[in-house]
């Protein structure tokens, strides 16, 4: 047994990320680990790489129990991890990034850039790719950065190679080359752990599969003995239909909200779409396709170079975010900690922060009582679980923090809300509650657009979906056309047959 985990548990404050995971990997396997976002995949991988220490549980490598102290230690044990988020040094060259671990270990005094570049090129070439290894990583495209991230792991002489959703920003061809390399590595006796929720990829390339749900391992077996449907039902743990609120029965025809040919200076290229009354619009696409950038441009968070935004057929000023907010267009950021909530402030001051005029006294001071009443009302509506609305937001779990971020938007009484990853890192219960609220808002006549990387969320929640590719709308799918496959086809630019 190359790698074995027994009963691994890990919690962060009140959030239980892992509640008991068993996992085993043999040499020569390509072992898929799948699960919904928030199921604990990335946490598990960080435990294996020594970035996080498990609270409880044992890790064995080749039969010996180990305590992995840090990523350097993991590398010495032969473990190499390709992170989901690209973590490269932008102002260092491609070659240096690929060999950073080795440079750190080296006893040499001076750098040999030439030699590094030549060797880096060889590794990149095994991925059927040409990248100038002397340029700085910050000048590469996102998908090339991802390849560098993979090359970095291949450069280590590892026994266990872990890839955390490595294909999210790769093209189809690049993914194929990657799998070719992975298969030859596995043949050479390396154990590969492959994290993904793309069923097609897993069933085409992996030999074993482990499913995580809510922080526990719930299934483990050979890929050839199972089916995608079985895996998905294991991942979700319940019927999809019951998990999401019922879809809209009555959708209007006169658009509530229209976006006409919106472009910005960088990523967003002539985007047009509509939100109809009574529908939740899904905005899907691969990581890096420009979904958030589009929402930010529409809401005036980044400057538009052209295009118009209309509410009920009338053009409105959304040139800046304050102007857009005044018109009733609100944006929920995908990055809760950095852009969503003020962690050090109380729940009630968070909720009133965007709509101070609603809790103002006549002499322009904040009326703490009004603030409290408003926070309690919205908190109740969102089923916020907190000791009191005067508590610090940082004391809440991820899901409840997200509810505060949403309440903050609702306090402005928006007509249109762009929700960027509204349930990222949120536990399953809170997720369902947030979905219920979105559906209810939609019934009340608020226009809702949901950006999500989680395809089941798009499929389960939205009444219609537009797919973004290269900063523009690649196409749209009605509720019954929306499947993981149809979205991915459109998102990766394969014609819809």
């Amino acid at each position: 047994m190359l790698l074995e985990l027994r009963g691994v548990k890990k919690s962060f404050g009140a959030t239980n990320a892992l509640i008991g995971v068993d996992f085993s990997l043999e040499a020569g396997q390509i072992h898929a680990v799948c699960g919904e976002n928030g199921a604990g995949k990335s946490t598990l991988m960080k435990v294996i790489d020594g970035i996080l220490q498990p609270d409880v549980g044992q890790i064995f490598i080749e039969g010996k129990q180990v305590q992995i102290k840090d990523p350097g230690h993991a590398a010495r044990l032969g473990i190499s991890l390709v992170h989901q988020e690209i973590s490269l040094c932008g102002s260092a060259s491609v070659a240096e990034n690929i060999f950073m671990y080795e440079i750190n270990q080296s006893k040499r005094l001076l750098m040999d850039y030439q030699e590094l570049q030549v060797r880096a090129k060889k590794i990149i070439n095994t991925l059927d790719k040409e990248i100038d290894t002397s340029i700085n990583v910050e000048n590469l495209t996102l998908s090339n950065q991802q390849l560098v991230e993979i090359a970095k792991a291949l450069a280590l002489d590892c026994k266990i190679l872990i890839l955390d959703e490595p294909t999210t920003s790769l093209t189809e061809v690049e993914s194929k080359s990657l799998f070719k390399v992975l298969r030859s590595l596995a043949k050479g006796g390396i154990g590969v752990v492959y994290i993904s929720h793309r069923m097609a990829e897993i069933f085409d390339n992996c030999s074993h599969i482990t499913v995580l749900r809510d922080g526990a391992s719930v299934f483990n077996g050979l890929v050839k003995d199972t089916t995608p449907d079985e895996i998905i039902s294991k991942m979700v743990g319940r019927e999809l239909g019951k998990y999401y609120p019922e879809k809209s029965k009555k959708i209007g025809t006169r658009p509530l909200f229209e976006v006409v040919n919106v472009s910005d200076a960088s990523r967003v290229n002539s985007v047009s779409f509509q939100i109809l009354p009574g529908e939740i619009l899904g905005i899907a696409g691969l990581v890096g396709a420009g979904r958030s950038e589009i929402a930010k441009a529409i809401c005036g968070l980044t400057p538009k170079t052209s295009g118009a935004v209309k509410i009920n057929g009338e053009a409105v000023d959304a040139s800046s975010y304050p102007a857009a907010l005044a018109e009733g267009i609100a944006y929920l950021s995908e990055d809760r900690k950095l852009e969503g909530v003020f962690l050090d402030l109380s729940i009630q001051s968070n909720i009133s922060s965007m709509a101070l005029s609603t809790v103002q006294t006549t002499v322009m001071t904040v009326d703490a009582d009004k603030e409290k009443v408003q926070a309690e009302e919205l908190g109740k509506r969102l089923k916020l679980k907190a000791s009191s609305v005067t508590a610090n937001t940082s004391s809440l779990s991820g899901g409840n923090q997200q509810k505060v971020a949403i309440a903050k938007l609702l306090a402005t009484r928006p007509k249109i809300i762009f929700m960027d990853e509204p349930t990222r890192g949120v536990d399953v219960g809170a997720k369902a509650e947030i979905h219920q609220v979105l559906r209810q808002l939609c019934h009340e006549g608020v226009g809702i657009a949901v950006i999500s990387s989680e395809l089941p969320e798009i499929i389960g929640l939205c009444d219609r979906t537009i797919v973004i590719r290269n900063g523009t709308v690649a196409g749209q799918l009605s509720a019954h056309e929306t499947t993981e496959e149809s979205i991915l086809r459109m998102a990766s630019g394969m014609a819809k047959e």
Partner: protein
Amino acid sequence: MKLKTNNLREAGLIVIIAALCLVMSFASEFFLTWENMRAMLLSFAIEGIVVVGMTVLLIVGGIDLAVGSVVCLSMVIVGALFLHGFDPWTASVIAVVASAGIGLCMGLCVTKIGLSHFIASLAFMVIARGLSLAITQGTPQSLFSLPAEFKLIGQGTIYGLPVVIIIFGLIVVVSDYILRNSVLFRKVFYTGSNERAAMYAGIDVNSVKLWVTVLCGTMSGIAGVVYTARFGAATPTFGVGMELNVIAAAVIGGASLKGGSGTIYGAVLGLALLSVVTSSLILLDVSVYFQDVIKGGILLVAVSLDHWINSRKQSN
């Protein structure tokens, strides 16, 4: 290829400095004389030693507001020990070690306690200044009796070239080379560019931050010794505001306060630009009070230009 943007910036700075010198040569025939050039070089050479340490610290993502105070403390230590009968060489070694010690304390505050470089160095800026005032009782020390061999460091020449400039030149050339080519210093870039990525690659980022902070203190200490030899005196109020000049120079030369970028030559050229502007303003009889306004303006224009070029590059 890899240093393209940096080379461009350095070339740009050289062009601006040359153009400024050319314009000034019309305004004052004294400007382009060897005497004046030497005076200008001398005026920034010692500060240049501090700039080297600061640039490396900025690259790792740190900052040191205490450099001016530490330079002064180093001078005062040399002076006080000399007046108490130490020979100036031993006194200098002790002064440099003490300056490195201040850097070490600052670095430990950052890596062990978790303070930011800004706050830690702000505290040590005040502490080092206070120590200087305490040691001297607030009065300048006159060190006329320093031996001639020691004064040579600050006042002598070799083949007509001031020793100060030779020391400065050596430090710049050597530090630029090792910063670009040594394995050890590359880790400074990695840590400053993306601390998490560096950590994932097994680099001990805290120890990198620690020794770079010590290095910056050491450079300030060395500069203090050279100043002492040059002036033959130690003033407990010397170096007030030096940190701003030094940081401005490094930033004009391409260092980023976010870490990950910066070059020694760029920083030295930044300092040279500020120095040429100062001496031009003096020759043009501009009021001393206005000189700072203009220098601040240059910093603002340089940094804005850089920001503008970068954001354009990114959107393309």
